[in-house]
């Protein structure tokens, strides 16, 4: 009898605990979750520390930022499936648009914060071996016979799409929109590719650790990271024309409204545009969107490079580009199977 009593009490306790713990603490949100992509680990590690201090000074409140990193599309998927991010800071606008389509982010998010909601940008550069023995200066040099090129596969890697499009943009200008010449150039370029890895980190390892190839097409920040890992072995060549990658940020409305974290989330993303936030981006080899702060890093970034965006009439935005170039039987498939 006594035993069954105890059992009942234990059972009701078990049922009550989750129920009482379930009421969301509306009073003060002190925790913010930022779901981000792979190469921003170091950036947000520093930024979060700075933001926590700034917020404490401003409001007297201690907060913590919970960080998650992974492949950009994979992370977007997790948010769609219920990984409760207050903010997302991803590699491509299309990944945030996917979350929008799932009903968690309101349309027009890209106008919420300045500069297309991209507090920092990046571009594609050449990482070459010390002294640039093959004398690679511009995109045209990469298609010459005997040059070993390392890039990930545009079918599987977001970064590789930028590589491909940057080369395309150059060729389009070089050959005066003569599509046949452009295709010929792109075919030759990919004919020079020695190893087509599935992801950007894989390609970096192929070039840096395994010593394959003469040039790695890489994110500017990833290239600087490789140099920091192995100083004195490589140098960076910034071609005169490249592409502007805008990794965007957004508040996940569905989560922020449920948790009552909108104010904190807004403050968090806004502070990325502050002088301090911009400098942290620059120190981590992302180009600050504020031109004044970018100027402070003019020794690191070649600010004179002409950058074409994905919204340029040449490409006409991500949706169109994705369909024309990278889907099955798209342009990339054609040139790569022809080879």
């Amino acid at each position, binding site marked *: 009898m006594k035993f069954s009593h105890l059992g009942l009490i234990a059972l009701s306790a078990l049922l009550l605990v*989750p*129920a009482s*713990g*379930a*009421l*969301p603490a509306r009073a003060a949100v002190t925790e913010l*979750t930022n*779901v981000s992509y*792979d190469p921003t*680990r*170091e950036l947000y590690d520093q930024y979060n520390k700075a933001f926590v201090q700034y917020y404490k000074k401003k409001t007297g409140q201690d907060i*913590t930022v*919970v*960080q*998650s*990193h*992974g492949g950009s599309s994979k992370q977007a998927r*997790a948010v*769609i*499936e*219920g*990984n*409760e991010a207050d903010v997302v800071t991803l590699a491509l606008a299309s990944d945030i648009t996917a979350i929008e389509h*799932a009903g968690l982010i309101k349309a027009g998010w890209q106008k919420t914060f300045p500069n297309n909601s991209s507090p920092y940008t990046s571009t594609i550069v050449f990482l070459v071996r010390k002294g640039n023995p093959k004398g690679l200066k511009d995109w045209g040099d990469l298609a010459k016979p005997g040059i070993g090129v390392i890039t990930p596969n545009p079918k599987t890697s977001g970064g590789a799409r930028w590589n491909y499009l940057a080369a395309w943009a150059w060729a389009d200008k070089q050959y005066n929109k003569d599509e046949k010449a452009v295709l010929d150039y792109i075919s030759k370029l990919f004919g020079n590719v020695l190893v087509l890895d599935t992801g950007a*980190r894989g390609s970096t390892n192929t070039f840096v650790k395994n010593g394959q190839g003469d040039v790695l097409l890489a994110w500017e920040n990833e290239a600087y*990271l490789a140099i920091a*890992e192995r100083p004195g072995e490589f140098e960076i060549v910034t071609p005169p024309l490249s592409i502007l990658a805008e990794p965007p940020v957004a508040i996940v409305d569905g989560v922020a409204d449920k948790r009552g974290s909108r104010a904190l989330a807004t403050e968090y993303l806004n502070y990325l545009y502050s002088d301090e936030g911009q400098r942290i981006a620059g120190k981590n080899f992302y180009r600050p969107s504020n031109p004044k702060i970018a100027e402070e890093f003019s020794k690191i970034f070649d600010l004179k490079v002409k950058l074409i965006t994905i919204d340029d009439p040449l490409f006409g935005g991500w949706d169109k580009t994705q369909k024309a170039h990278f889907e099955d039987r798209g342009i990339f498939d054609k040139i790569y199977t022809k080879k």
Partner: protein
Amino acid sequence: MRKAENKWGRRALIAISMAFVLLMLITPLLVVLFEAFSSGLALYWRAVSDKYTLLAAKLTLTATFAAVLLNTAFGLAAAWAITRFSFRGKGLLTTFIDIPFAVSPVIAGLVFILTFGRLSPLHSFLDSYGLKIVFATPGIILATVFVTFPFVAREIIPVLEARGTDEEQAAALMGAGFFTIFRRVTFPHIRWALLYSVILCTARAMGEFGAVSVVSGHLRGKTNTLPLHVEILYNEYQFTAAFAVSSLLAAAAVIILIVRNIVEFTARKEGDGNVR
């Protein structure tokens, strides 16, 4: 002539097994330890005492403990039911218990996401009670339970089958109740097998990566287990730290192996041949 052949055959077999164990198990273990301490004790200590390492360790222990507890209860019940009663669907139940051995853990993780995730019909119900399953601790526990599900039942069923039901029937005839029979008759027979299966279950639960990785969401300090933490450190170019945290898992594995050997030894001394 035959004898000589046997001798060579024996030597070859021993050599092959030894070489395999050395190459596949001992060398990697030594590499982990070497890399972990390669940058000195201070760095090792900083890596293992890091806030996020400790939180990951806590989560791993929580999930392991919960998985062992749940699977022990379930495994005992299932083993008892299968060996002591005959009922419809018994063959099916026995087969179902083995599913986690056959299904890839990644699929298991995805199934949990589809079942409890935001797009599942169950989600709004769970959400109205504020219950979060995937991308939270319950999901990690579920995934761990799934992959370690068969261990206890699989270990105990053969023991109970070998024993038969005579003693229990005798006890029942003499008027003993269910709990008395279990405590005084059944349990003494299976305790070593049970302990052994709990050890195996613990080892497997602590190391689980695939299923947990899918349901985790990789929220640092919240849903990161030790194996996931190792991967994160490795991807951040923090090789020494990654190996230092790996060495924690390796150390736990070695301790588990030692405990297992003690259990085996003691069981054999007590003349219980059921522990293999």
